């Protein structure tokens, strides 16, 4: 199972840049880039902060792909 996310899609929908989202969630822009590219899996705390800032439910923002 691969953990994927729709952060880029929802971030662009709400009109945030990566820099702005990073500032709002207290992380670096590189961290947001890594999460959007599925290179880094955020902690639950960061995932909840991101979903809160993007005004989206966490289960919509993050999902599993290839569930057996």
């Amino acid at each position, binding site marked *: 199972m691969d953990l994927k996310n729709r952060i880029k899609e929802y971030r662009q929908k709400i009109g945030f840049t990566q820099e702005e989202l990073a500032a709002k969630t207290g992380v670096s822009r590189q961290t947001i880039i*890594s999460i959007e590219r599925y*290179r*880094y899996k955020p902690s639950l705390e960061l995932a909840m902060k991101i979903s809160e800032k993007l005004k989206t439910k966490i289960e919509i923002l993050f999902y599993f792909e290839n569930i057996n």
Partner: protein
Amino acid sequence: MNLSKKELSVLIEIIYSILFALLFLPYFYENRFTSFDFIDNIFLWLVWGKIGQMIIFSAIYYSIGYTLLHIFNKEKIIKDERDDMISSRSYKLGFLLYELSLFVFIGVLLSNSSFQNSGFIIFFILLLLLSVIFIKSSYQLYLYRKS
């Protein structure tokens, strides 16, 4: 290749280990069979002189390196959970390598007692330490680029 400030600071460490090896290792390699058995041995004083040079080189290198980094890169460093993850992974590797080095070091010392009082031991210690720093920092940079 666009590097962030954190990646550049790791790169400064990698360059440091390479420069340090190029500047100081040849001297100890050339004197690997020179003994420093006696307290008035001239080689012993030369070694202290070299250690002084190493300390001065390190202080100057890092001062200049980080000053230039802060001057030319105004990006504010934000430390977050990804940095912690990268640090913990790279330092774990560094710790394992230090442990392995210690075993190798003891093994080499026990294998030949003449190494204990010669320039070889300093060369060997420096080689191990620099290798660990180089591998750890390179892995840290790799994680910053790939994770």
